[in-house]
């Protein structure tokens, strides 16, 4: 037997508990002090509800758009050779490495009426920064590497005989893609979608500048509202909202696990 089980497991559990789990449980403990009526009142505050709606719908839209572009990018990276491919491959992960605040202020200025891109759009009367469009744009920026990273390995390991089988049976490349390849990619795509969505719902740094944070225009995101409540020392509201956001995150995490378990059951031939 390999030694070190007790030590490594002990340290793992201890560090996980002290650094992550106990602080999170503190949020839970504090929110338990609130009565259900208080809890409901804090959550049904109009601004809070709109912030939830904004975060969830914008993240969903951005994650869907990312699925579309993510498949194209992954396909291009795996199947084609062209000059500059390695740069393209590297740059995809930029959002993982670039600090969110930097991304936030940059996108916000770039897409504002005086920015390079925002200027072009403002001439045709489309405002991007400080609207939901800008918000979705920032979430696309943050989410794209999750989808691409989830799909690329699956596409790389796809058995070429599958496509040949479809081809030999007379399927066009369109049918082969939509009937065979896409179903092979579906679990990875769902995982990437869920990760991008989870990241988007809780995103703070990259969205708070471009969103404008207007309560009137419903461009406040949920993490901005938590931060606002913290700054006002309104800990009751902050924890109540955080608890719901945590539940949403755990729900998504659970969903991803279910997909992965189901996938390994489906695809395991042995």
């Amino acid at each position, binding site marked *: *037997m*390999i*030694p*070190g*089980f007790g030590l*490594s497991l002990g*340290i*793992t559990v201890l*560090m996980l508990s002290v650094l*992550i789990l106990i*602080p*999170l449980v*503190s*949020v839970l*403990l*504090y929110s338990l002090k609130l009565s259900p009526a208080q809890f409901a009142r804090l959550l049904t505050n109009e601004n809070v509800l709109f912030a939830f709606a904004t975060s969830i719908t914008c993240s969903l839209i951005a994650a869907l758009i990312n699925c579309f*572009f993510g498949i*194209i*990018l992954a*396909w*291009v990276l795996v199947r*084609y050779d062209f000059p500059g491919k390695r740069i393209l*491959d*590297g*740059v*995809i*992960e*930029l959002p*993982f*490495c*670039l*600090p*969110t*605040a*930097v*991304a936030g*202020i*940059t*996108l916000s*200025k*770039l897409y504002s009426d005086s920015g390079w*891109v925002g200027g072009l759009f403002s001439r045709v009367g489309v405002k991007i920064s400080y609207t939901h469009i800008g918000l979705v744009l920032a979430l696309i*920026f943050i989410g794209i590497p999750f989808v691409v990273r989830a799909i690329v390995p699956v596409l790389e390991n796809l058995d070429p005989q599958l496509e040949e089988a479809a*081809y030999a049976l007379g399927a066009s*490349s369109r049918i082969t893609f939509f009937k065979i390849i896409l179903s092979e990619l579906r679990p990875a795509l769902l995982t990437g979608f869920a990760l991008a969505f*989870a990241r988007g719902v*809780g*995103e*703070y740094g990259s969205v708070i500048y471009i969103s404008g944070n207007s309560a009137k225009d419903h461009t406040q995101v*949920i*993490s901005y509202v*938590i*931060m606002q409540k*913290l700054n006002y020392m309104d*800990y009751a509201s902050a924890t109540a909202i*955080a608890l719901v*956001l945590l539940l949403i*995150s755990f729900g998504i*995490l659970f969903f991803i*696990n279910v997909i992965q378990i189901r996938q390994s059951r489906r695809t395991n031939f042995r």
Partner: protein
Amino acid sequence: MDNTTQRGSSLVKGILITISILFVGIMLILPMVYVISSALSKGFSFYFRSLTTEYVVSALLLTLLATLVAVGVNTFFGIMASWALTRFQFKGKQVLATLIDIPFSISPVIAGLSYIMTFGRMGWAAPLMDWINRTFHTDFQVVFALPGVLLATIFVTFPFISREVIPVLNSEGCDEEEAAALMGAGGFTIFRKITFPKMKWALIYGMILCGARALGEFGAVSALSKTRGRTFTLPLEIDALYMSGDSDSIVSAFSVSSILVILAIIVLILRNIFEYREKRSGRKAG
């Protein structure tokens, strides 16, 4: 193979490559160019002056400290966790793996909030800290102080290294470790001689990603840090400069950002190199 891969008409190929390049160009590369161009929009001397203000220098030092601590702590954790999770079978393993990944999918603001609710004035650990401070005549604070900044940075980067190392160790299997254990090797020898060489590239890659994320963490630190010049990291300093609103400060914000953009590009290049190495060493082993 030639028929199936080339069968997709070159028109489709051209369109898809164009879409990809446009997407990456507009969404990812343009913003980087914009940062550099804005940073230099008031000339080089202004650029260097904005980088050497007292606030920026203190923020830079704190950021480096937080990054070092986070990478150190999480590397240790990553090695322990990947050893426990890939070398042994036990009940609740899947649950443990899922718990470790929590910081990936929760809002960084919640990370900040959870430390406030633990160590802050309302937190259950506050009386404990009061007692410690009274007994030892210290003034130890977590929230709105250095330890809070460090803890927040550790929290958000917690799973980065274990996440890179675990899949590599899993795919390598543990036959060699078992063989060494049967021959009587101790745990540390097994780790040093067998497991470490297997995970080396993944570990370095994870450390780079962890470092990159630690450098740039904003939401979690922002909740736990209030004093500019003392507990502000670079992203918070950028926020402060940007939010002050006058055009000089905004240019300064982009100047400071340009440092982080350059670091991000270096990380991307390193990532490319290490990923290539890892693939190659993996191929050699297989």
